[in-house]
């Protein structure tokens, strides 16, 4: 029950005849871990991310996120899970153009029923956590790529979710900005958030304490550095 992610022989097939993008994945991520799921494109890691993020349901096996079996939940319950328990960071940031950083971050709480003034207040705090207190009123086109991704991370953590999923968070960034973003993820992890980074970048994965390698829809390696609770 304590594991935040628990997958048992999870499969996800598409089309007819079925093509398995996820061919029986079993893995467990405990609360407080910092994990890389690494694999080349086409390895099925995005499908895995969709299932972990409850954006998609497995066609076989059991996926438990935050202790809840995804298959048993309806759309409302899954949405509630995403609203309150999971934060997402995307490769393309997905920030609304023409909207200030504060309002972009505040949208992270839009579906939690928190009133707007309170959302904005907490957004300011979250932007402080990612070191962007001096960019509150800036719009995405006035920010650098690294800053944009930090705004997106602030949006993901504004509601203090126990689980943060980052899909290629450094994919669109230069190495310096990328390193800053990775350091930020480390920092958030130290503050107690479980962080799962999905990437094809082995170099990036090497900097994280646990690496789960995916190929052809299966886990081919699960390496945890000694001294890290697994």
């Amino acid at each position: 029950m304590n594991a935040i992610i628990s997958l048992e022989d999870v499969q996800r097939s598409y089309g007819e005849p079925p093509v398995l993008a996820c061919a029986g994945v079993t893995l467990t991520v405990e609360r407080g871990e910092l994990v890389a799921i690494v694999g080349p494109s086409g390895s099925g890691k995005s499908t895995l991310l969709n299932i972990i993020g409850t954006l998609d349901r497995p066609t076989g096996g059991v996926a438990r996120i935050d202790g809840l079996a995804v298959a048993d939940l309806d759309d409302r319950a899954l949405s509630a899970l995403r609203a309150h328990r999971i934060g997402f960071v995307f490769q393309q940031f997905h920030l609304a153009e023409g909207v200030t950083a504060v309002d972009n971050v505040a949208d992270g709480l839009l579906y939690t029923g928190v009133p707007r003034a309170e959302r904005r207040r907490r957004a300011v705090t979250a932007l402080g956590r990612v070191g962007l207190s001096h960019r509150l009123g800036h719009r995405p086109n006035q920010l650098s790529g690294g800053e944009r991704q930090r705004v997106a991370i602030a949006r993901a953590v504004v509601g203090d979710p126990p689980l943060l999923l980052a899909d290629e968070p450094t994919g669109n960034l230069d190495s310096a900005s990328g390193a800053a973003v990775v350091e930020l993820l480390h920092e958030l992890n130290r503050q107690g958030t479980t962080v799962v980074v999905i990437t094809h970048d082995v170099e990036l994965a090497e900097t994280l304490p646990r690496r789960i390698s995916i190929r052809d829809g299966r886990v081919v390696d699960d390496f945890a550095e000694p001294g890290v609770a697994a």
Partner: protein
Amino acid sequence: MSTALAPPRARSRLLGRDVLRLGTTGLRARPTRAVLSALGIAIGIAAMIAVVGISASSQARLNDELDRLGTNLLTATPGKSLLGKATTLPADAVGKIGRIDGVQSVSSIAVLSVPVFRSPLSDPDATGGITTTVADDALLRVVSGSVRSGDWLNPATSGFPAVVLGHAAAERLGVVSPGTQIWLGSNYFTVVGILDPVPLAPDLDRAALIGGPVAKELFGFDGSPTTVYERSDDAAVDRVRSLLGPTITPQSPSDVEVSRPSDALAARNAANQAFTGLLVGLGSIALLVGGIGVANTMVISVLERRREIGLRRALGATRWHVLVQFLGEALLLSALGGVFGCALGTAVTGVMALVNDWPFTLPAVTIAAAVASTLVIGAVAGFYPAIRAARTPPTAALSS
């Protein structure tokens, strides 16, 4: 009554005031498109409001006119006897009618077959449709007519070759001011007055009106009227109407035809109303096309915003929240068009009323109906796109 310990299971919630803000995001992102698609609705609404407003304003003018002219005027004319022969009204008809209870005033005219010309040199065949008509002093008051220039006939002038021309008659004879002489039944008559148009007795517009005594002297007028005009108390109109025939010719009441000239005006208006119905139909087609425009815009918008939808789903939006957002946007879009259309339609009505000198009339229920129909159109037009938006898979945010 949930305790603080039990529940990480908070629900996904979207506040009502946030729905309104969300509805405007698409409009703010692409204002030109929003304006253009709202324009379709606006034109439809404006067309319908203008049609109804113009019709209501002209109706209001007619009502004013009827109020001014009164609807209590009845006319009695000779009809056909049972055997199909033309009848005449007796010379004492006016006197008899005046004694009916409730009758306020009576007057009569008699059309003579006497041609009217501008001068003795005029072509004898070119009568111009002007009828020589014998009138009494009371006529002008009974039919609510008015003199444009000169004077109405009086006991003095009715014994002399003096004539008052109806509005159209004066125009056709080319008479612009009193004092002119015209050639009426081989006699010179002096024009003493020219009338304004008489809406309740249009026959008088084409009449050359002369007094009874001079008609008797020159043309052998026997005193038998061809039309009797009668005004009674409003409440007595129906009763008087049924009494006119028996009073004039008790031996054969059906020989007299009775009509109410204000009914003719009202009937003309009813014909206009039917035309208005047709125009409203055309306006509603414009509205329908506008609605399709909104639906089209929304469908495209949903396709373009798959990623935004995916992001919102990742942030915790339920399908319902996405549906509500896009439905709200469609409603807002058509409401925008509706408000603009109402303003435009009202302005057009105002201009038409001003130009035609009508009282500006626009029933509040029309505006209410217009607003209601824009909301219905917005809901219908937005429903399918909103369903499509709600069905967009949450994974759309990730698939690049």
